[in-house]
C-alpha cells in the first residue's frame, strides 16, 4: 500500500478538478513557491501549507489511499471540491522533484486522518450489523413496491395514449407543437415515479429541432418508448433477464446483487456528463482475466466532481458486482485489494464489422441500447468529407464517428496519435456511429485519453 512507487501523472491529478478554472488555478499552485512543510507518508497521505493572500497559510491534506478515490481537506474557504490547493498539492507531489519528501504527518493532518479512519470503522461495523438484521418490515416494503408499480402502470398507460394521439395526428405536426407539451408529459412521468420514461420523453421533445432526418429519429424513439411501455405492461410474460432490463430502463432502483467478481480491472475510459442538477461520471473497466467490459457510474451534485476518480491506464485489483438485467454492463465497485497501479494491459480488439455485429447482438438482450463498449484493433482515423471515420487498416470497411465525437478536441489527439498509421481505439459503438474514448499507438506506448 505504498503510494511512493506509484506516482500519479499530472493528467491524473487534473482529472479530479471540478471545472476548467480549478484546473488552471491548481496548475499554478503545482510548484514549490507557495508551499511549505509539504510531505507525504507511506499510508497514502499528502500534506502541506500553502500561502494564500492572508497571513495564515492554508492547511491542505489529501488521502490518496482510499479505495473509493482520494479524500481532501483544506482550511481555505473555497466551495470548489477538490479546491485548487488540494490539486496544487497533488501536482507538486506528482511532479516528484523532491518538494514533497516522505515524512511524519504534522498533528493537524494526523487528526483528520484519525477521524476518517474512525468513521470508516464505524461504517463497517454498522453495515455488518445492518445486513444481519435485514429489512425492518418486509410486508410494508412489499406494499410500497406494489403502490409504486401501480403508479408506473398508470403513467405508462397514459404515455401510450399520448403516443397513439401523436401517431394518429401525424409527426409532421410535432415540429409546430414545440417542446412544452413533452416537458409537461415528462413531469407526469416523474410524478409516476418512472424517471426512465421521463428522461426518454424529454429526449423526444428535442428531436424535431435536431436537424435533417428528424422524422425518422422521432419515429424510432417513439417506437422504442412504446416498446418500453409495452414491456412494462406485459412484464409478467417476459423472461427474467429482459424483465429486469425493462425495470431498470423504466427507472426502478436496483441494487448490484450479482456475485462479486474479482479481477484486475483496467480503467479504459472515464468521462463526465452534466446537467443542471447532476454530474454523472462513467468509467469503463476491462477485466483482464474475465475478458469482460463493465461500467461504473458515480454521481456528484451540480458543479462538484464525483468522488470516484479512476485515471485511465491504471489497473485495480478489485471486486465488482453486476446490476440486474440481461446483458447490462453496469456494476458496483466492491472491495479494492490494492492501490491502482499502471500496467501494460491492453484490451483485445476487433474489426469494424465485428464491432457492428457485437452491437447488433447486444440488442437482443436490450433493444433500447444506444451503444456497446468495443475496442477496435488496427484502425486508421480517416477524413470522409466533413466527417471522420475509423477505417480497418487491413480491409475496406469503416465506422463513422458520431457527430458528438467529431466536435471534440479528442478527435485531433486521436488523429495526431495515429499520423495515418493504425491505432487501437476503445469507444462506444452504436447506431449513431463510433465515439472514441481512449487510444493506444501501434507499438509500445501508454493509453491516450480522448474524452
Amino acid at each position, binding site marked *: 500500500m505504498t503510494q511512493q512507487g506509484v506516482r500519479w*501523472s*499530472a*493528467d491524473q491529478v487534473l482529472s479530479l478538478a471540478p471545472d476548467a*478554472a480549478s484546473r*488552471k488555478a491548481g*496548475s*499554478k*499552485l*503545482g*510548484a*514549490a*513557491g507557495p508551499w511549505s512543510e509539504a510531505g507525504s507518508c507511506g499510508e497514502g497521505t499528502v500534506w502541506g501549507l500553502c500561502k494564500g493572500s492572508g497571513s495564515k497559510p492554508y492547511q491542505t491534506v489529501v488521502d490518496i489511499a482510499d479505495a473509493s478515490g482520494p479524500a481532501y481537506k483544506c482550511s481555505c474557504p473555497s466551495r470548489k471540491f477538490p479546491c485548487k490547493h488540494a490539486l496544487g498539492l497533488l*501536482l507538486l507531489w506528482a*511532479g*516528484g*522533484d523532491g518538494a514533497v519528501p516522505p515524512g511524519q504527518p504534522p498533528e493537524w493532518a494526523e487528526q483528520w486522518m484519525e477521524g476518517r479512519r474512525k468513521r470508516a470503522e464505524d461504517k463497517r461495523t454498522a453495515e455488518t450489523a445492518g445486513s444481519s438484521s435485514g429489512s425492518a418490515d418486509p410486508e410494508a416494503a412489499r406494499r410500497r413496491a406494489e403502490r409504486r408499480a401501480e403508479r408506473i402502470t398508470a403513467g405508462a398507460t397514459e404515455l401510450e395514449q399520448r*403516443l*397513439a394521439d401523436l*401517431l*394518429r*395526428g*401525424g*409527426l*409532421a405536426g410535432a415540429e409546430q407543437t414545440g417542446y412544452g407539451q413533452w416537458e409537461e408529459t415528462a413531469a407526469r412521468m416523474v410524478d409516476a415515479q418512472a424517471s426512465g420514461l421521463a428522461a426518454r420523453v424529454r429526449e423526444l421533445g428535442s428531436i424535431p429541432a435536431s436537424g435533417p432526418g428528424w*422524422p*425518422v429519429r422521432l*419515429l*424510432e424513439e*417513439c*417506437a*422504442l418508448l*412504446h*416498446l418500453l411501455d*409495452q414491456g412494462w405492461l406485459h412484464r409478467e410474460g417476459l423472461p427474467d433477464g429482459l424483465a429486469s432490463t425493462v425495470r431498470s430502463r423504466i427507472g426502478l432502483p436496483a441494487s448490484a446483487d450479482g456475485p462479486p467478481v474479482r479481477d484486475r480491472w483496467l480503467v479504459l475510459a472515464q468521462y463526465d456528463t452534466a446537467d443542471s442538477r447532476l454530474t454523472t461520471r462513467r468509467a469503463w473497466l476491462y477485466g483482464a482475466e474475465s475478458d469482460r467490459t463493465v461500467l461504473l457510474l458515480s454521481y456528484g451534485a451540480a458543479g462538484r466532481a464525483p468522488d470516484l476518480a479512476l485515471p485511465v491506464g491504471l489497473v485495480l485489483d478489485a471486486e465488482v458486482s453486476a446490476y440486474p438485467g440481461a446483458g447490462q454492463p453496469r456494476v458496483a465497485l466492491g472491495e479494492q485489494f490494492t492501490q491502482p497501479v499502471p500496467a501494460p494491459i491492453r484490451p483485445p480488439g476487433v474489426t*469494424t464489422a465485428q464491432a*457492428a455485429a457485437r*452491437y*447488433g447482438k447486444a*440488442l*437482443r438482450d436490450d*433493444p433500447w441500447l444506444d451503444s456497446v463498449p468495443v475496442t477496435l484493433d488496427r484502425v486508421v482515423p*480517416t*477524413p470522409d*468529407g466533413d*466527417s471522420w*471515420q475509423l*477505417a480497418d487498416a487491413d*480491409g*475496406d*470497411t*469503416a*465506422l*463513422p464517428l458520431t457527430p458528438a465525437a467529431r466536435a471534440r478536441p479528442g478527435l*485531433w489527439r486521436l488523429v*495526431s496519435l495515429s*499520423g495515418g*498509421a493504425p491505432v487501437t481505439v476503445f469507444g462506444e459503438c452504436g*447506431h*449513431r*456511429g463510433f465515439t472514441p474514448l481512449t487510444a493506444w499507438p501501434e507499438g509500445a506506448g501508454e493509453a491516450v485519453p480522448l474524452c
Partner: protein
Amino acid sequence: MNGTPTPVDAPAPNAWEELVTAALLGTERRTPPGCPPGPEAPAALLDAAAAETVRRRAGLRPGRAAARVEPAAEDPRPPLPTAAARRLAMLLTDRPGTGGGGRRGTAPDLMELLPQWLATANTQGFAPPPELLPALLDAARGRTDLRQAALAFAGARAVWLARLNPDWRFALRAAPGGGMALPHLEDTDRIRQLWEEGLFAERVALLSAIRAREPAAARELLATTWATERAEDRLMFLDSLRTGLAADDEPFLEQALTDRSRNVRATAAELLSSLPGSALAARMAVRAGACVAVDHTGSTPTLLVEAPHECDAGMEGDGVVAKAPAGRGERSWWFGQLVEAAPLATWPARLGRRTPQEIVALPVADDWQAELHAAWCRAAVRQRNAAWARALLAAPAAPEAGGPGAVSLAERSKLLGTLGGAERADWVAGFISAHGLSEAFQLLGVCAVPWSEPLGRAVVDALNIARDAGSYPWSFSGVMGLAERCLDPSEASRLDGLMAVPDETEDASPGAGGYWAEAFQRLVSTLRLRAAMAEELGAV
C-alpha cells in the same frame, strides 16, 4: 450510422419508408401497410416501427472506407522522457486568457516558461508525444513568438496535421517554402525550375537555403534572372546576400550600385561598405577622411569636422541619399552617411595613429560630437568591429554611460551585440552595478541566457537595493520578469534570504516589503521549476 451502412434481411425494402410516411401524415390520413384501419392503427404502427427500428439497428454494417491519407513521416528523434512529457502537458494546460489577471502572486507563470522549455527540448533533439501536438499547435497559433520553436519541435507531423485542420494553416505558411520540400542542392534542374517558375516565397526560401550552404552558387543563380526581376523582388533577393557576404560578391554589388531603383542602390552600397576591402569602402574612406581632422592649435588636440558642402553625383552613385529627412541639416545628413560607410580602419591612419579609445576620447569642436560618435556606432555595428564597439561603449561605470550621452541605449545594445557573450554580460553587470536597473532593461535583452554569474549577481543586488530603498516591486516588474526567465537556476539558493518579509522602515512605501517578498518567492519558485524542467530534459 449516418446512412452509410445498410440494414440486412429487410423483409421489404420499402416497409420502413412506408411506416415513416404513415407516421408523418398520421394514421387518420394514411393507414400503414399490414395494419388495420381504425382506433388500433397507431398502436399497430408503433409495434411495426419498434420491430423495424430494432431490426435496422441490429443489422447495421460498417460502411466503405474513404480514401486514406498519406501517413505522416516517421520522426527519427528519440521520444521525450516521461517526466518531460508530463511537464509539457502541464505547461500547455496553462493557457492565457482563461481567467486570473491582476496581481501575479507567488506562483510561476507557466506560459512564460514554454519558450525556454521548447528551446531546451530542441537543443536536446527530442520528438514530441504525438497526442500533445494539437495543444502545441493551438498554443503556437495564439502566440507568434512561440511559433518558430514550437514548429521546429512539433516536426513533420504538425505540418501533416495542419493540412487536415484549417485552424492550423499558419503551420503551413511558417514552414520554409510554405510547407513544400526544397530540392537537394545537387539537383540543379529542379533548382533551376523552381527558381524560374516558383512563387515568390518559394524563390526566397530557395535562394536563402542555397546562400547558407554555397554563397557563390546563390549569387550566380540570382544573376541569371536579375535583369528581369521586379524592383521590390530585386531588393528582397539582394538582401539575402547579407548571409555569408564576402569579397567575391563585390563585382555583383558594384553592378547593383547602378540599379534603376534607389532602394536597391542603397542596399548594395550598404553591403559594399560592410566589406572594408571594397572599392566603395575605399572611396567612402577618402570622402569621410576629408571631413575630419585633428586640430593641434589649442591646448589639447581636438577633432574638427568639416561636413561636405554638396552631395555630388559620385556620392549619390555610391548610395548616399541626397535628400535629408525633415528637420535634419543636409550637410550633417551627408556627413553621417559618409562616416557610417567608411571602413573604421580609416581613422587611426588619418588621426595620428591613435587607438579607437584615444580617438573616441578626443574632444570634438562645434557640437559635432553626437553626430560623429553616432555614425561611428553605426559603422562599428555594420562592420561588426568589437574594438571600436568597446571604445564607443566606454567603461560601464563611467558617468556618461548611464545618462543620455552621445550614444543612446538602443545604440549601446547594438554595440554590445558585436562583443563576445562573456564580455557583453560583464559590461552590463558593470553598468547595473554603477547605474542601477532603471536603464538596464534594453541592455539585458541582448545578454545570453542563462545570465552569467556576475550579471545575475549584479541584477539581484540591484533588486535588493531597490527593495531597501523602499519602492514598490512593480516599478521593476520588467526586470523581475526577465530575471525569472534568464537567471541561472543555480542562483535560487542564494535568494533564500530575500523571500522573508522585511521589517518596515519609516520611509518605505506601505506594504512594499510584503510585495517584495512575494516577488522574490515567485522568482525562486520559477528558478526551481526551470531547474526541474532542465533536469527532466537531461540538459543539466
